């Protein structure tokens, strides 16, 4: 490897062998490597993309829910509940009592209508009730849409 990271820098060698005039190890390859590693770290971090998080509440068990429903004079928290299911292998979503619609279509309507309905009230909670067959991706899509629409809290059932 041509002497590795060291070169023959002795004055005698410089006279006879024609090498450079400096003494000590040649740091150029090390600097090269460090720079390459730095650039690679930056590129890798950018390539992998940052991981981030959506906060989700966990709906209380039905028994606790029932106990909490004993009215104590305060107005109960308004909760909207969206059911996620599959129809013909495609995710569908619906508010309670409404007909299920394809998730894409539901999300488009939801994104445009929800901000007006919420009227800036960011204290509202949306409960997502997925069935076991629904993909996690669909749950996250609806969760994201709810946060974008202005819901203050999203709860998973």
């Amino acid at each position, binding site marked *: *490897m*041509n002497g590795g*990271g060291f070169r023959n820098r002795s004055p005698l060698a410089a006279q006879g062998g*024609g*090498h*450079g*005039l400096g003494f000590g190890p040649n740091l*150029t*390859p090390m600097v*090269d*490597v460090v720079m*390459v*590693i730095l650039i*690679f770290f930056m590129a*890798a971090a950018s*390539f*992998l*993309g*940052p*991981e*981030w*998080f*959506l*906060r*989700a*509440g*966990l*709906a*209380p*068990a039905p028994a606790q829910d029932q106990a909490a429903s004993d009215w104590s004079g305060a107005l109960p928290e308004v909760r909207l509940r969206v059911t*996620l299911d599959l129809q013909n292998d495609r995710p569908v979503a619906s508010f309670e009592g409404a007909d299920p619609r394809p998730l894409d279509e539901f999300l488009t309507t939801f994104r445009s209508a929800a901000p007006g309905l919420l009227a800036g009230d960011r204290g509202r909670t949306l409960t997502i009730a*997925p*069935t*076991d*067959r*629904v*993909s*996690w*991706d669909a*749950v*996250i*899509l609806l*969760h*994201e849409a709810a*946060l*974008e629409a202005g819901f203050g809290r999203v709860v*998973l059932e």
Partner: protein
Amino acid sequence: MRAGWHARGVSEEGRVNVTPLIDVVMCLIVFYLMVGHLVLQRRGEIDLAETRIGESLPSEGVDPLTISVNADTIEIDGVELDPQRVGSVVAGRLAREPGLGVRVRADRAVTYSAVSPVLSALRDAGVGHVELATRQIGGGE
């Protein structure tokens, strides 16, 4: 003139000195292998769902409890676990470290049936909310 040749990696014999190039390439290869291995180990080969919004939550000094859900495995802090034991393990950790944050990293392709038992176990253990890991859209471009 000699110094200039050396600085540009050209030897006196008129040949290009390829030693630094080989050094760098070898380092790159080793580094790629190591980083790839470490990243896969850390991320558990989970393809997270992509979102446009989210929060980069700080760990606030204490590492949160991270539960990874894959098609057929559940891991807590990198240790594979039987699904039936998730509740007891989480309850044990929360008893030792009250207020511990919980993060759920689920593969986007799994069905809710894979995640639901984990959420139920967390709920039973007294966890009120979780942080769902996603990947920023465009973060990988």
